[in-house]
Every structure is written in structure tokens, then in C-alpha cells.
């Protein structure tokens, strides 16, 4: 079995260059509602950029430290905070509009389901972000959220008050999980293209 040939065949059948980077789109894709997904992706881009910048200098740089340049660090931290707000705004607008057009039709249920999983990963990543702030919010949320985690048994593995674990989860494990889910979600989107309007589908069915 030639793995490379199989991969070529898979891509030819599922994701050509025109699918991955389209230069043509159906005319019905003509609404601001189609921009919430790319807005969420852009917010993730800013989150990654600011997050990586903060990781280069460490927590004292972006939270209350006296280190040189900590003013810049706080600003980058503020950008990270507002990108998270933008991400969730875009995500919820994205879900609502995709529900409104029943975007799971014509075999796109996997796109919807992976997207919902990505939302769950984003919420959990956000929680660890609040816990990793090393300020009062983190302190209060840590002692409060622990009860919920403990109640469902997760507390045995995830300690909201363990700063080291919270930080590594937030900067490595959860972003990787979120990135993987978003990647799969995007693969399905690019492979299948935007779902047809309700009547277009009926028209096709009548034509067939």
C-alpha cells in the first residue's frame, strides 16, 4: 500500500486546493452572518499571538510585576483578555446563525458536532485562563470552581488551585486540543462548502 498515493487520492476526493483556498463561492453566500466564523478564527489568532508573547516574558511581565517593560506586558495581557471576549462573542453569533440556516444539512452534521466540541474546549480553556491570571479573580474562581470539579470527580486529576497545572493546561494542552478541533472543523467546512439555502435544496431534489 502506497501511503503517499492514498493521501493524494484522499485529498483529490476531499480537499483540492480550490476547496482549501477557494476563489469561487456560491452566490447565496452574501451576508455578514458568514463572517462570524472567520471573526472567531481571527480572535484565536490574536489570542495565540498575545499568549505566545506573554509566555516569552512570563507572568511577572504581564501581571503586576516591576520587571522592565511590565507596562507593555499589561497591555498585551489586556489584548489577550479582550480577544477572549471577542472570541466568545463571535462563537455564539456563529452558532446562532449556523443554527438559523440548519448548517448541518446535506451531511454536514460532523462539522456541527466538532464545532460544538470546539466550543466546549474553548470554554474550558477560558476557565483555565481566568485561573491563571494570578490575581483576585484567579484566587476566588479557584476556590469556587474546585467544588464543581470535585463534585463530578474531575477534581482528582484537575486541581483548580494548582497554579502550575492550570498554567500548563492553559498555554499548552488545551490550546492544542482546541487547535485540533478547530482544524478538523475547518477541514469539514472547506471540504463540503457552504450549505445550500432551503429552497435550493428542494429545487435540486425536484430536478433529480
Amino acid at each position, binding site marked *: 500500500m502506497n501511503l503517499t498515493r492514498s493521501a493524494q487520492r484522499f485529498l483529490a476526493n476531499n480537499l483540492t486546493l480550490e*476547496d482549501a483556498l477557494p476563489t469561487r463561492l456560491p452566490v447565496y453566500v452574501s451576508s455578514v452572518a458568514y463572517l462570524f466564523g472567520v*471573526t472567531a478564527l481571527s480572535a484565536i489568532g490574536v489570542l495565540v499571538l498575545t499568549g505566545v508573547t506573554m509566555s516569552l516574558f512570563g507572568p511577572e511581565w504581564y501581571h503586576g510585576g516591576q520587571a522592565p517593560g511590565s507596562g507593555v506586558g499589561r*497591555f498585551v495581557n489586556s489584548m489577550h483578555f479582550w480577544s477572549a471576549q*471577542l472570541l466568545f462573542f463571535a462563537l455564539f453569533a456563529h452558532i446562532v446563525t449556523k443554527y438559523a440556516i*440548519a448548517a448541518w444539512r446535506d451531511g454536514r452534521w460532523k462539522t456541527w458536532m466538532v464545532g460544538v466540541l470546539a466550543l466546549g474546549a474553548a470554554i474550558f480553556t477560558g476557565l483555565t485562563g481566568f485561573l491563571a491570571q494570578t490575581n483576585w479573580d484567579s484566587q476566588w474562581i479557584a476556590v*469556587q470552581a474546585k467544588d464543581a470539579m470535585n463534585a463530578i470527580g474531575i477534581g*482528582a486529576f484537575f*486541581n483548580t488551585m*494548582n497554579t502550575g497545572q492550570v498554567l500548563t493546561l492553559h498555554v499548552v494542552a488545551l490550546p492544542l486540543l482546541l487547535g485540533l478541533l478547530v482544524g478538523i472543523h475547518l477541514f469539514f467546512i472547506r471540504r463540503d462548502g457552504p450549505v445550500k439555502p432551503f*429552497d435550493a435544496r428542494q429545487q435540486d431534489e425536484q430536478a433529480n
Partner: protein
Amino acid sequence: MSKRTEEYFKNVPMKSYDLLREGLIVLALATVIVVVLAAVFRSPDYPTVRGEDVANLQPIAFLQTSADILAGNHGVQDYGPPYTSDTENAQSLFGVKPADWFGVTTPVDPAEDLVLKPLRRVALLNSGVANALQEYEAANPDQQQAWATAYLDGLDQATEESGKVSVPSGDYGPVAAMMNGMLALGQAGLLEGAIESGNQLPYSLNYTKSLLFFQDDVDAAVAEKLDMKGDQWGVSNETGRFPGAWWLWPYAFLYQIPPMSSSPNADLQAIAIAFAAFLLLFLIPLIPIIRALPRYLGIHRLIWRDWYRRGGSRHSQSP
């Protein structure tokens, strides 16, 4: 275009499109929005509640917290897994207690870990505290409890002046000297350092026990002032006027209604409902009524208004 997309869009008129251009424009706009919001509003950064602050600013509250822990009144005292081995207080739903499944993974003995161990460090520097600690540890548990309880009662009538607390005389045994030792430890800013005594020092990244010290009354009092308690939708609030985790509003709402609003199993009940709701969202494409609803809601007519204005399905027949 792959065979499957070519087949799907066979009768659909297409238009020119530039994915990368659109992506870069939206990214630039998103960056501008974020930069402006960060520059104008900055971000929340309310300082932590530290032992030093509480001991100096609210010494009676500090002593009450320390004596409460010593008397066995800390919230973690009979908490169950993952902190203590007693399992009867673990949250339960239909008789199922997930908290008990994995046992004690983060052992915490509040009186020992949060008060007696730190006091043993103070005792190395203060003979008065050393003698008091020796007397306390030599006494039987009933006597220890009686001293601590009496001291807590005495604290109700305590007065404070310039950081010094005067407690009316009473039968406190060595507890009064021990608590003065705790207060001195706190006022010196050494509480957290004395509590965290793991083998990983000076590289500890886990301050679980220090965070637990004030979790009951002191943290709750601060949270109440900042509108962050559970009954104030706290999980979704931030300090000041900043938006918090507003996406958790539906989850926070569950704590405001019965039975969660007064149940000892509120967390487990709320998470079970939230998980069911998440599962529902996940399975929407497979649930008959909910998946059919969008067609009748009519919001799609707004999103595809250009398409419908041009004739909808008739449009797709045009070349």
C-alpha cells in the same frame, strides 16, 4: 474543486471570491478592535487576598479564620475526596457520588496543615509559642476543642487597635498564645510561606493549601463586596465593570433556581443539567423537532435575503 463539491454545487451559480483577502481584512479589523478595547479599558487586575493584608487590616477576621480552622470548622474539614477520606459529604445525584470514585488525591488536614504546621515554624523563633504548642498538643482532643471554642466565643467581644487585638479573658488555655503566633506570622507576611512546605520548594507552583486558608469567610466577604458570590451570578462576573465569563450565564443561572439555590448537591446538579444541555446542542442535527425548527423560524430569510430577492431556487436555474 473536488468531485464531491463539484457535484454538490452543480446547479448553483458561483461568484468570484478571495478567501485570504477576506481573512486578512477580518483579522486586521479584529486586531484593531482588540487594541482599542485594551487601550481604552485595559483589563481587570484586582489584587489577591494575602495573609499579610488580612492580618494587618482585619486582624480579628484573621484570628477568627485561624481559630475556626483549629476548631475543625474549616470548609474542607469533612469535605471528602479529593481532600479527606470521609465520603458522606460528597455531592450526590440519584445516589451517585462521582467525587468518591478516585479517593483522596490532594490530602488536606486543615488544622494540621494550615495552623499547627505553620505554628511549629513560629515555635522555632518564639519560645512562648513553642510552650503553648507543646501544651496544646499534650492535651486531649476534647480539651483542645474546648479551648478553641472558648477562644472563638471570646473573639466575638474582641477589640482591635493599631493591629493589636484584645480578647476578653477566658479559659483559652494555650490557644490565645498560639493564635497570637499565627497573627504575628500573618502580619510578617510569612503565612503562605509557612503553609507551603512541600519537597519542591523553592520551586513550588502549587499553592492549594494557601488558597484554602481564607476560602470560607474572608474570601466570601471580599467576593460579596465585588458581586462575585454564587448567588450573585459570581461565576460569570468580573471585578469592576469588566465583562467576565458571560458565556457561563446559563450555567450561573442554574444556581439561582431551585433545587440548586439551596441544595448541598448544587454543583453536581448544575453540571449535570449543563452537560445535558451541551449534549442537546451537540446532537441537534439528529433531533427531529429541533433540527426542523430553523426552516420555520425565518431567520434564514434574513441571512439569504439577496438569494431570495433574486428569485431563490429560480435563480439557481439561470446560467
